[in-house]
């Protein structure tokens, strides 16, 4: 009996119009990417992603410090990723991108066009999330690669050796992986917050505070944090001094794959719950 039910369930799943949903999702992603990346509002996200790149470029062109060692700049790059990109740049860019996906459309009174199209709401949500993720990844991934190139270009042949014959490329891979997971993790959190709350900003500030104090929390609470998962994936541990000491507290060690899977599971749960919420979503612009 159970096997018959399972077979019927599997048959009904396979009978769904997956091809149509895939086509619709691809088209939605294309439209959303156009809006995310080529609108005037996107300047803020470009700024957040490219600010360190611009500073590194200025240093390279005008303020080269020949006395600096390669290891110092390697630490500087790690600090940029850990303290700036993860805690500020990716955080605020994702807040801007992902809270706009649904809530922003509500505020601009244009969400109903998506809900009146012959597209499942879950497809709309997943496509919007995907487009937001691609936008964030494109910008921050490109910025990360540019930062990496600028840091090691300054060291000439030694830099080249470090990148191609040393640990450089694997560090770059790890940074890109960390940034990608950061975009997905914060993206999912802010998408959900923007669906639950009319104004997600105060909640986002609480998340920021939580992420800041999370390293000194008990081990169980540390698991409810995007940054704590990412910290375990960093290829280099940044030595902390002053205020940064709080952010570099040594927490319970977690295997890299465990941290990545934990974060991906968190993202999956949040997206599944968001799909449930969008099914019940009503258009009531007057109360927004």
């Amino acid at each position, binding site marked *: 009996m159970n096997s018959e039910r399972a077979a019927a369930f599997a048959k009904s799943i396979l009978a769904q119009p997956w091809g149509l949903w895939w086509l619709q999702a691809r088209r939605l992603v294309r439209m959303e990417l156009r809006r995310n990346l080529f609108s005037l509002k996107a300047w803020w996200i470009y700024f957040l992603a490219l600010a360190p790149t611009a500073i590194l470029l200025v240093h390279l062109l005008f303020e080269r410090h020949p006395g600096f060692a390669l290891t110092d700049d390697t630490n500087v790059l790690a600090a940029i990723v850990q303290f700036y990109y993860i805690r500020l740049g990716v955080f605020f860019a994702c807040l801007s991108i992902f809270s706009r996906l649904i809530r922003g459309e509500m505020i601009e009174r244009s969400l*109903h066009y998506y809900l009146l199209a012959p597209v499942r709401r879950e497809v709309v949500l997943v496509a919007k999330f995907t487009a937001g993720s691609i936008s964030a990844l494109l910008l921050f991934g490109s910025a990360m690669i540019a930062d990496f190139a600028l840091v090691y270009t300054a060291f000439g042949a030694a830099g080249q050796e470090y990148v191609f014959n040393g640990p450089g490329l694997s560090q770059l891979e790890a940074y890109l992986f960390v940034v990608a997971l950061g975009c997905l993790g914060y993206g999912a959190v802010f998408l959900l917050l923007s669906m639950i709350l009319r104004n997600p900003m105060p909640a986002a500030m609480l998340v920021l505070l939580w992420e800041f104090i999370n390293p000194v929390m008990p081990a169980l609470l540390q698991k409810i944090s995007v940054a704590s998962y990412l910290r375990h994936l960093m290829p280099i541990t940044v030595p902390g001094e002053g205020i940064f000491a709080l952010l570099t507290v040594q927490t319970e060690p977690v295997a890299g794959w465990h941290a990545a899977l934990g974060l991906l599971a968190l993202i999956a749960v949040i997206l599944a719950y968001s799909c449930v919420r969008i099914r019940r979503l009503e258009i009531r612009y007057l109360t927004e």
Partner: protein
Amino acid sequence: MTAMSDRILFEDVSKFYGEVLGVNRVSLNIPPGVTTLVGPNGSGKTTLMNLMTGLVQPSSGQLSVLGITPADPDRFFRQVGYCTQFDSFPRRLTGWQFLFDSLLLHGMSEPDAFRLAGEALERVRLGDAASRRIESYSKGMRQKIRLAQAIAHHPRVLILDEPLNGLDPMARADSLALFQELSRLGMHLVISSHILDEVDRISDRVILITGGYIVAEGDIHQVRREVRDKPMQVLIRCDQPELLASRMFTSNHCVEARLHADGKGVFLRTADIDEFYRLLNRIAVEGLVSIDAVAPADDDTLAIYQYLIGSDGSPS
């Protein structure tokens, strides 16, 4: 096709926004043709339309359009087009892009979307402005592009919330002609409008709503006949209106007479329309008065609105 699969059905549908009533226990069975939703501001017209299209969900009851519910959007929105009242659009799109993108979401091929977008733009006479950004459109043009988007995919049901708002008289006439044409093709058109006299001309039936309650629904003439406490008014064009009025007053169902401004007709009010027409026939046969035309003067939507809802929006 079953009988019910060509209907818009509401079964005891209620919608509450928190403690505020949207609509209460609405049951409707709407056949194809033009149906006008009439009611004062805040009466529940837009709520009914939003319920029909799943933009809001019923607190209780069930509804379906052509046998499909909005919970099945893949099928539902191929059959339904909704021109909302919301005067807003995705940013930075031209009229053409707006239509083309909407059609692509149906899953159709790009050449098909291209053809249908062009066709819809021509239908609303907006072809010249297609390449301009919607932000630069006038209110009337924005109304037209919303209408184009609602009809572009050739739906069988078209729901139009105040579709004549912001249109100049020429554009209103064009839109009404388009609605009539679509109705003739067997489509459902559900229209809410404040411009009652114009919508009245193309409307097959009317739904009167106030305070979230359906006050009356059906064919306009039938609804008028059911409003028995308001004597019906008939205009009779004839050569001797005074004589006709005096003869009609010999019957006690005639309650009011008023001469037409041109002196070639008389408005008569009667509490018994069947008896009224019998008496009028007798007078015509007698040949004392030469009757040119007889027409009901108050069985239009506006009159029914005033009788049933009143000018203050509360049922009278």
